[in-house]
């Protein structure tokens, strides 16, 4: 590690934190805050990309915070997986911030929308970069509290009800995570992930480690919205403003998945039949019941919320197959899902803006009136459903291939059936919102249909994400290759351990 690398890992965190502090200094001046936020997020994006390039060239990068040697201080680690996640979350943050300029009412901005959003991204980035299990817990808290505040910013009754469910279930998750962390510390005497990986491998009573793993499975499972822990997600996502939902739907659950992948590739790998077979079962149920939930809904945002659950199942399925290809598939799927899902929420928000609500039964005529919006929706929706050559297909394809290679026929069948059901529920939105005639009340005002030009920033955000999706769809090789290398790094924990603890 040369001295020039040090700021590279810390930089994304530092940018967000500094921007947060400046935003609070300019509390009364919302426009200044907006300027700070967009500058910071752009810099954050640049920093993340730079970090990814550096990790790609130099291997895993490590910073010992405060120069206390590992495992005594806190270590920040950037491997390919973490760097990829950082880049994708920066992309989403950028798009969502752009969108927020025209979406978030002034009243909310004056209550600290920008600083809280920045802190949430701070928490997300910290979770990706930390190499310490207690520190991860802290980042999760930062993320949780910030997201909770964002959620209740509107202060409407529906929002509060959803947010209370979210925060209480999340607190339960935090409790599990903290207890699990304490147990692991008690059993091994260390908190550093790399050190822990070695200590677990040496530990005489693996069953006790499995006990600890249950705490993390449930804790992260709640965060990631796995079956049967996903209830908070459909309950709380449809209510807050679109911007906030989009960034949460896109990112937060995936931080849970990230943590699961991290723990289940680095720490809990000593007895796959005890840990990963549970994941396998959970993945199957998550996929299936998630998509069933989507089919049962009549509200566009609710359908989209349940899809998240179902697709988290795909990612965990990749983890449970536990081959390099499967993990690569999971990583690819996460990135694809974040892009597409965020964009779908953004688009549903635009539809909501033009029509006033999101109920399928009372929507219609978008296809005739807004062909370009329709195109954006088609791109994302059919990508989510896995129609080639859109990005979702590649994720699905890699996971199916990986599953068939390890002869998990049943789960692959479930995942393909889930794909079909996803398509089914997407065509439901398509039929009702885009193809069907506009409802009669609307038709009276059809002449004065709101021109999309007025929402240029909303559209710009959506187009930006759509372009990212298109790139991922048409040139998947670049990213598949990257995912493959990230997966190989994950499947070889020695690289991680060597980077953090070079002397051991």
């Amino acid at each position, binding site marked *: 590690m040369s001295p020039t690398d040090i700021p590279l890992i810390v930089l994304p965190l530092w940018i967000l934190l500094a921007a947060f502090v400046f935003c609070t200094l300019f509390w009364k001046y919302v426009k200044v805050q907006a300027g700070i936020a967009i500058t910071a997020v752009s810099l954050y994006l640049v920093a993340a990309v730079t970090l990814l390039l550096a990790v790609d060239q130099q291997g895993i990068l490590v910073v010992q915070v405060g120069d206390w040697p590992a495992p005594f201080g806190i270590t920040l680690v950037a491997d390919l997986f973490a760097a990829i996640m950082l880049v994708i979350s920066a992309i989403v943050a950028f798009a969502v911030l752009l969108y927020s300029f025209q979406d978030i009412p002034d009243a909310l901005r004056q209550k600290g929308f920008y600083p809280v959003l920045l802190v949430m991204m701070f928490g997300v980035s910290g979770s990706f970069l930390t190499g310490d299990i207690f520190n991860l817990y802290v980042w999760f808290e930062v993320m949780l509290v910030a997201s909770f505040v964002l959620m209740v910013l509107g202060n409407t009754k529906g929002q509060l009800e959803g947010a209370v469910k979210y925060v209480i*279930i999340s607190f339960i998750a935090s409790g599990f995570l903290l207890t699990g962390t304490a*147990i692991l510390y008690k059993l091994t005497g260390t908190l550093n992930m790399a050190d822990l990986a070695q200590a677990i491998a040496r530990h005489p009573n693996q069953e006790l480690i499995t006990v600890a793993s249950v705490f993390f499975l449930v804790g992260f499972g709640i965060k990631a919205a796995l079956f049967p822990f996903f209830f908070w997600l459909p309950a709380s996502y449809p209510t807050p403003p679109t911007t906030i939902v989009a960034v949460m739907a896109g990112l937060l659950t995936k931080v849970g998945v990230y943590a699961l992948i991290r723990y289940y590739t680095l720490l809990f790998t000593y007895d796959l039949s005890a840990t990963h077979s549970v994941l396998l079962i959970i993945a199957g149920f998550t996929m299936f019941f998630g998509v069933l939930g989507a089919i049962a809904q009549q509200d566009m945002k609710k359908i989209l919320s349940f899809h998240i659950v179902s697709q988290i199942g795909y990612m965990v399925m990749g983890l449970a197959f536990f081959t390099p290809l499967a993990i690569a598939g999971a990583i690819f799927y996460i990135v694809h899902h974040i892009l597409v899902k965020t964009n779908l929420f953004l688009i549903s928000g635009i539809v909501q803006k033009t029509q006033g609500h999101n109920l399928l039964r009372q929507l219609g005529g978008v296809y005739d009136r807004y062909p370009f919006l329709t195109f954006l929706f088609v791109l994302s929706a059919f990508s989510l459903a896995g129609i080639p050559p859109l990005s979702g297909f590649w994720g699905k394809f890699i996971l199916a291939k990986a599953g068939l290679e390890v002869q998990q026929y049943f789960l692959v069948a479930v995942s393909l059936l889930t794909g079909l059901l996803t398509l089914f529920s997407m065509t439901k939105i398509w039929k009702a919102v885009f193809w069907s005639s506009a409802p009669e009340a609307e038709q009276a005002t059809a002449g004065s249909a709101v021109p999309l030009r007025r929402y240029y920033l909303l559209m710009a955000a959506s187009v930006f994400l759509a372009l990212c999706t298109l790139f991922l769809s048409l040139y998947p090789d670049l990213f598949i290759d990257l995912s493959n290398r990230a997966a190989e790094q994950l499947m070889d924990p020695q690289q991680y351990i060597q980077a953090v603890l070079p002397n051991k």
Partner: protein
Amino acid sequence: MHYIIVAIFAGSLLSAFGYRRYSKAVFAGLVLTLLGIIGYLFQWLPDILQGERVVSTISWIPSLGIHFSFLLDGLSLFFALLITVFGLLILSYSHRYMAKSAERPAFIGYLLFFMGAMVGLVLSANLISLFLFWELTSFSSFLLIGFHHHNEAARRAARQSLLVTAGGGLALMAGFILLSIGTGGGYDIVQLLAQPKAMIDSPYLHAAILLIAIGAFTKSAQFPFHFWLPNAMAAPTPVSAFLHSATMVKAGVYLIFRLHPLFEGVLLWEYLLGITGAVTMTWGAFKAFRQDDIKRILAYTTISALGIFFMMTGVGGQEAINAVMVYVLAHALYKGALFLAAGNIDQQTGTRNISDLSDLARKMPYTAGAVILSTASMAGVIPFLGFVGKESLYHALYHHSQDMALLYLGLLFLAGAFFTAVTLEIILHAFLKKGTLRADPIKEAPFLMVLAPLLLAVLGLLTGLMPGLTVEPLLKWAAASLYPADPPTMQLKLWHGFNLVLLLSALTLVAGVVLYLWRKGIQRLRQPYWLKADYLYNQCLSATESLARFSTDTLQNGLLRNYIAIILLTFSVLLVFPLVEGRAAYAIPSDFLLRDLQIYEVVVLIFVTFAVIFLFKTRSRLVVTATFGIIGYSIALAYTVFSAPDVAITQFLAETLTLILLIIILHRLPSYTLKKPIARIKYLTVSLLFGAAMAVTAFVMLHQSKDSDLERFFLENSVSQGKGQNAVNVILVDFRALDTLGEITVLMITMIGIIGLLTLKPFSPKR
């Protein structure tokens, strides 16, 4: 070769955006482009007729072995020409057919998009790029079938075809993956075909066959997946003519042809295709005779013809394949012409029902000419290509050694008879019968719309008259592509002399006349509604929706306590297994409870116990929150007892903040609903189970001891390196300062949130 596909897709985009303003110029440009492509394909003809193969590859996703790779041999050239020549005719027809529609640009755009996908499909030499184009055809046909999207029936039909074909597509994808795993190679079709025996020995053989067959069956509307095709007749007529006669539905047939060398001789392959095809053929022909709507008649005869293709491929053998190739061409010619003529009739008269039509022979003489010529080909009347095709089919089946061949022959005879009967019905009723339509001012369709069907019908006659000179060379090599090891054997003649097969052909016509005369009896037969595939499809959909609603209402019932109970229950169950498994690792000492018990600890314990009991009694949210406070503060007290005052202060602070936050929110929520006693027992059980699991875990963990390097390091270095006497403080502000930074941020954000909650008035979202 890839430029062909790029050109068609570019044309699709161009027409979607430019057709409105420059319709003539764009149309001319498209026609020229297609002519160029056809010319390009013809330029390869001499090479292909020498038995050559042309392969070109563009690297795309090397890490997965997926490339845009294209193969031109007899088979793919035949299909590519079929698609582009038909595409050209359909394009010119649509240009006129949609002339009055404001949505013509989109229509032409979709049509070309579909064509590009279809050409890509038949030229692909990589299984996955083939699959990509396969799904694109499903998707574009979804857009085309639902083109009249204000019509509910069209929307429904579009969704149905998408779900059926995409569902089959998923099976196909799995089949392709198994194929590549089974042969141990990539997805390169040329390589796969070069070693046809590699798959035979694989354990995945039968699974792959089944999955690939399901893909082909759904796409090519084979029984029991055939139902989407008649419903897809909601599409504009040019779409039906293009997608549902000449091209898309033949994608499955093409796939079966393409992979036939890999699977020939496998019993599952032979019987699956043969029997499915035979059933579809018979059923389709029978159903066709029972329809009134001309387009639905054509749809069912198409299903039947597709059945013939599958059946013959299942029978196998070079002669059968030769015969089926001829019939593919014959079918495309007559069915394309018929669909287009049906479009003319629909547009000029406003109806497609035979019972409402009459006297069309006088009113629309050119359309009538096209219909008569092409239905004659469909019935297999000499000297049309349909006759040549039917003769070859009979001949191949009659001389085949497979045990099912004669049964197939009998069914084919029956289907042929039905075709004849349908032909008679269309011509006699819609065209020759005198009727009320006579008085209406019905005119012949415009030139471009007559030209296309008439051209196809006349081609059917000419090629039938001189099959050896016109179509034999290409068809020969198309069939030979399936048997790369053997020389091509096809020899086409119109007249084979008087023999048994000719007699059979003649008898088919006679039987058709008999069936026609008996039509009232046949059309009276009732099919129970619960046996209709379409009905079963609907049942499937609504069953899925009911299951979805049921499972979601059960799981996601809106009650937070229920969610928590499920989470805790799952957690406890998951925790019990490793605890039981690992019980050897720990022992529970008997006197653990009373050892070193201090009086403060007892006090705190009593506080907590009473608070918990009180919790169960109370019904007010506010009191519950307050009681939680008591528990929280008691725990903070416990921290002071265990000499960690700073942690205790933090706990006090956190507890206070939480309380304030909760109380602010709580009074905005609906009042507490009373639980039934049974529910209380349920939640009590879950709580006890969870509590017990946690207690055991905590206890077990307390008795695990491990010397920590961390503790030693912190104690040794806090004074010398951290410059602090209190090790905990040094940990918080130095060793693990990042944690503290995070926690401070949490506090700050909580404060912002509380301010927001206190001051913001509820707003109503603006439109």
